[in-house]
């Protein structure tokens, strides 16, 4: 049994539990009542504490002192010259394929001089930092994408609800004050992964991300990604129209996100008492091996009422994903256009239908797990928060799901829903090929889709495969 008075719960909330103990603690937590709510309380408090300490001025060494250190250690000379890393330096994660990537990096650093660098695990942490810094010192270098080590694990679905109804009035007020006070701008909930910066600090990385339409979650503007629970299917109709007319589909008029949502997926129903269920799958990206895909599916409670359309009188439904900048360099919502992202933030989503579901997919560039720079929630990659009003009582509620890095799967192991959605996403990316760098090909899309037909009760998935084949044929003729 575990409850609020147990320091282990606090440790768990702060991600201080050893892997070996984690599963037994989780069992205890699942058996405990209201523990999940308290875990979120603790995490919010952790954010506030960081902010409180941030009130202090950022004391540091004087220039003179720094110069003295540089002089005594010869450091200044090192940073100015185009040095190569010594032969015996090796990155700690030997198994990941970023191994190859980094030797490319070293080549760039050497201005094209082809020198293979082998890294030792002994100076592991320092080496990762050094690479980042060496790159930062060179304005012409593109930030390399670091691949993430995949591990085989079952899907994560951790759903936690903060429900003020169960807390005393005192705590409720404090909670509300915190919600309002913690963040005075745009959002109405505190950031889980530390305060975002106003400007992105690393301009090389930023240039690369922007070129490829990725967003950097370390900045305020991009820490959160909003998406709408109501995504239309006009693009699907448009695609059908074009294909049947024998015309080549173009990126205008076809929004990939809408295409993805036009198909049916088998998300779990919400648990008893919940209004939403959030399903997430975090896998490797089939068309870009150094990237990852995060597929999120939200399903609305279906009350099974006889009326054909039951409206949930949600006041504001806001859905947002917060990405942890300590784990993620960049993300891109597939199918998001400039206009739509603004829309999502401002639009009050008033109407949700029973049993409705929405699917969004993100392409993600992971961040190297910097040993020296640990944040409070280092194992969380992202979290999804849904703010809404309870359909019956109208009370404001919030629901939080987190995605942990221990739940990354290989693409092949993910569900057919995710794999099919990915194939649709890949198709969309090909259509938009001019703007995005991607190795998606029609052949790949077909292969993915064919392997992800699932039950396909209405035949829509098979139909999609036909359309892709036709598109491919038309493309060859061009």
């Amino acid at each position, binding site marked *: 049994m575990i409850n609020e008075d147990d*320091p282990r719960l*606090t*440790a768990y909330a*702060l991600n201080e539990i050893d892997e070996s103990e984690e599963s037994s603690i989780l069992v205890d937590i699942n058996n405990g009542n209201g523990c999940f709510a308290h875990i979120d309380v*603790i995490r919010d*408090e952790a954010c*506030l*504490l960081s*902010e409180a*300490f941030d*009130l*202090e001025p*950022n*004391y*540091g*060494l*004087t220039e003179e*002192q*720094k110069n003295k*250190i540089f002089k*005594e*250690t*010869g*450091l200044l*000379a*090192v*940073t*100015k*010259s*185009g*040095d*190569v*890393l*010594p032969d015996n*330096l090796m990155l700690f994660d030997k198994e990941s394929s970023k191994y190859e990537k980094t030797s490319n990096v070293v080549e760039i650093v*050497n*201005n*094209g*001089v082809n*020198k293979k660098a082998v890294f030792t695990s*002994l*100076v*592991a*942490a*320092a080496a990762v*930092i*050094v690479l980042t*810094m060496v790159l930062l010192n060179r304005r012409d270098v593109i930030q390399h994408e670091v691949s993430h080590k995949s591990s085989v694990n079952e899907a994560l679905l951790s759903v936690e609800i903060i429900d003020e109804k169960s807390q005393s009035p*005192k*705590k409720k007020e*404090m909670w509300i*004050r*915190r919600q309002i*006070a*913690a963040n005075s701008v745009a959002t109405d909930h505190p950031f889980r992964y530390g305060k975002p910066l106003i400007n992105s600090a690393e301009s090389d990385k930023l240039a690369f991300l922007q070129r490829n339409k990725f967003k950097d979650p370390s900045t305020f503007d991009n820490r959160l990604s909003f998406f709408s629970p109501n995504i239309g299917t006009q693009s699907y109709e448009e695609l059908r129209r074009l294909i049947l007319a024998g015309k080549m589909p173009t990126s205008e008029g076809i929004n990939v996100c809408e295409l993805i949502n036009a198909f049916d997926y088998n998300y779990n129903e919400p648990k008893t008492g919940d209004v939403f269920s959030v399903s997430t799958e975090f896998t490797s990206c089939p068309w870009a091996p150094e990237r990852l895909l995060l597929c999120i599916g939200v399903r609305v409670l279906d009350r099974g009422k006889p009326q054909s359309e039951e409206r949930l009188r949600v006041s504001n439904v806001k859905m947002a994903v917060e990405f942890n900048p300590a784990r993620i360099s960049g993300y891109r919502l597939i199918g998001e256009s400039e206009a739509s992202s603004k829309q999502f933030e401002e639009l009050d989503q008033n109407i949700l239908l029973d049993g409705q579901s929405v699917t969004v997919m993100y392409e993600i560039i992971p961040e190297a797990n910097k*040993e*020296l720079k*640990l*944040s*409070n929630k280092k194992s969380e990659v992202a979290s999804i928060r849904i703010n809404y009003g309870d359909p019956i009582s109208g009370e404001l509620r919030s629901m939080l799901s987190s995605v942990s890095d221990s739940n990354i799967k290989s693409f092949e192991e993910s569900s057919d829903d995710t794999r099919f959605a990915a194939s649709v996403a890949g198709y969309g990316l090909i259509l938009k090929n001019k703007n995005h760098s991607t190795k998606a090909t029609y052949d790949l899309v077909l292969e993915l889709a064919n392997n992800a037909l699932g039950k396909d009760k209405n035949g829509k998935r098979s139909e999609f495969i036909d359309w892709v084949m036709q598109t491919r044929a038309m493309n060859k003729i061009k």
Partner: protein
Amino acid sequence: MKEIKNNNSMSSSPRNIDPSAVLLRAAMSDFEIPLTKYAVSILGDLEEARDVVQETFLKLYKQDPNRVGLKVKAWLFTVCRNRCYDVLKKNNRISNLEEDQVSAIPSKDKDPVEIINFFEGRDEINKNIKILYSLIEKLPARQKEVMRLKFQADLTYKEIAETLDISISNVGFIVHSALKNLREAMNDKLND
């Protein structure tokens, strides 16, 4: 230390970097500010704190990077802390001989409240955060230090345990108690 020339252009013979220097550079980039803030919290004096931090970094340079590399953070905070307490002892500013109960007498009368006053003019700073800060200052010395290491310097329980030479479960208990204290104190404050 190898001789290093300042040369920006492409060269046919790449020079070697001194791994100690590499480690030092990384450490300074990441920890200069958290270390200084931590030292200030112990010594109460910015100048003294800066000296200690400078010495700490110079000491780091002399270590074997292969041994220290993976535990740089804990190493830095441990050494910094020890040096701070050496300074305090030397100048007889420890009010109590037992380190874990210690509350340093600041060399000049710098009150933590001063820091809050520093921000009084800035409206956008949330009032509750300021209240929280003042409550942190009122925690017992050990709890205060652990909270600072955890939430300002971002050390893990393990690193804090090494820095303070106590057990990890002890750290966990202190954090848990401190959070509880703060939570209750905050509730009381908000109900005033």
